[in-house]
């Protein structure tokens, strides 16, 4: 049964503890997934935007694959590589004590993987739009490759980095298929908003409760969208001398 009794019609939002757990867990998973994948997203975007190398098409294909694969397939692939008895998963568990299967950390992985292509794409586009002659100017002024990246490339790409991070956050928040396949649907551990809504809809008379979570999901997504628009606009204004 649900965690608490719902008092129908008392207010628009009337969430049980279990609902709140799912909401907070979703926010935590999406935030951690975004924060941890951001450095990799920037590195891969830089690599794809700037470096020509053998096998680039293959790397691109792998990065963008989660965008086109059915999420269930991505989740299944994660399960057979990172699961408790899968080669990589067993190695990590035995040597580092790191377990992803059926843990919220596993949901972070699946959400991160699903959101990664969107993040990389946004950052890559903004890096490609940078006038490289500014980087040349910086290097004539004594900036080595790292300083050049930190003081010129990254600040100029910032609107794209923000947009990419927000897109990834929103995508991670809504992730369902890969997550439920990889780490299942365990209340308090891996049950995100999406999974909680799905579960409620399987219960007779759960529609009203599901609607509550649907409203929360809409509010969070809208807030993320507005925040990203605002941040990106501020960053762009800063670039153009406001």
């Amino acid at each position: 049964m649900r965690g608490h009794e719902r008092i129908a019609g008392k207010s628009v939002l009337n969430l049980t503890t279990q609902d709140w757990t799912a909401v907070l867990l979703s926010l935590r998973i999406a935030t951690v997934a975004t924060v941890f994948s951001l450095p990799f997203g920037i590195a891969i975007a830089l690599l794809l935007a700037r470096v020509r190398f053998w096998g680039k098409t293959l790397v691109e294909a792998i990065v963008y694959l989660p965008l086109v694969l059915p999420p269930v397939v991505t989740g299944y692939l994660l399960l057979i590589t990172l699961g408790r008895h899968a080669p990589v998963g067993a190695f990590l568990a035995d040597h580092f004590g790191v377990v992803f299967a059926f843990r919220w950390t596993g949901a972070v992985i699946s959400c991160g993987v699903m959101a990664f292509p969107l993040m990389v794409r946004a950052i890559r586009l903004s890096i490609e739009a940078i006038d490289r002659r500014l980087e040349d100017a910086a290097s004539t002024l004594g900036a080595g490759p790292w300083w050049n990246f930190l003081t010129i490339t990254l600040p100029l790409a910032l609107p794209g980095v923000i947009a990419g991070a927000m897109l990834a956050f929103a995508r991670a928040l809504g992730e369902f298929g890969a997550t439920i396949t990889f780490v299942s649907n365990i209340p308090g551990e891996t049950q995100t908003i999406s999974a909680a809504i799905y579960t409620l809809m399987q219960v007779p008379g759960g529609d009203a409760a599901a609607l509550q979570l649907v409203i929360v999901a809409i509010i969070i997504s809208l807030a993320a969208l507005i925040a990203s628009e605002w941040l990106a606009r501020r960053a762009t204004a800063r670039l153009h001398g406001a």
Partner: protein
Amino acid sequence: MLSVDVDKQLGGFRLRAAFETQSGATALFGPSGAGKTTIINMIAGLLTPDRGRIVIDGEPLFDGAGDTNLPAWKRRIGCVFQEGRLFPHMSVRHNLDYGRWMSGLSAEAESFAHVVDLLDIGHLLDRRPGKLSGGERQRVAVGRALLMRPRLLLLDEPLAALDAARKSEILPYLERLRDEGSVPIIYVSHDPAEVRRIAGRVVRLENGKVLAAGGVELLA
């Protein structure tokens, strides 16, 4: 003293140029497409020659035979480009300080004040490059290159993007800079009148080759 002897093939364009410059201001003069900017980029370290040597004050910056190729950021050669290339996300003050920061030089209030005064950009310090006029932008670009205390200053058509009025507004600053004589200058231009005002020596280029090198009489 700078000594350049380089080869570079760029698509169908072949550059083969050798010349030397002394202290003071030397002009690289020639029509567009002569290879002036290509040479400047090779001296600055932004383009690698196919063959040859670039030596400044006895130190090789590039040596095709000896595998020496100092990266641009280690060359300490100040550049002013046609479009200024000020960093849009930094204030004028931070643009000016950038070279000093990156080169790890200590702050010298005196030299900062001197350059700001020389170029008359004191009232622009807190503005963003996006809010500057073309002439102001180029003056800041000259200041930025000077404040990294370069051993050579490359000015690549610094006035080409400006109208006649702006040009005559900036030329006196460049003359003052030359007259100070603190840093040797290479001045790239296709405009004889401009070159005559700035440079004492001229290297005349056409189709990727040095036609002649000598005094300003070559401009005729």
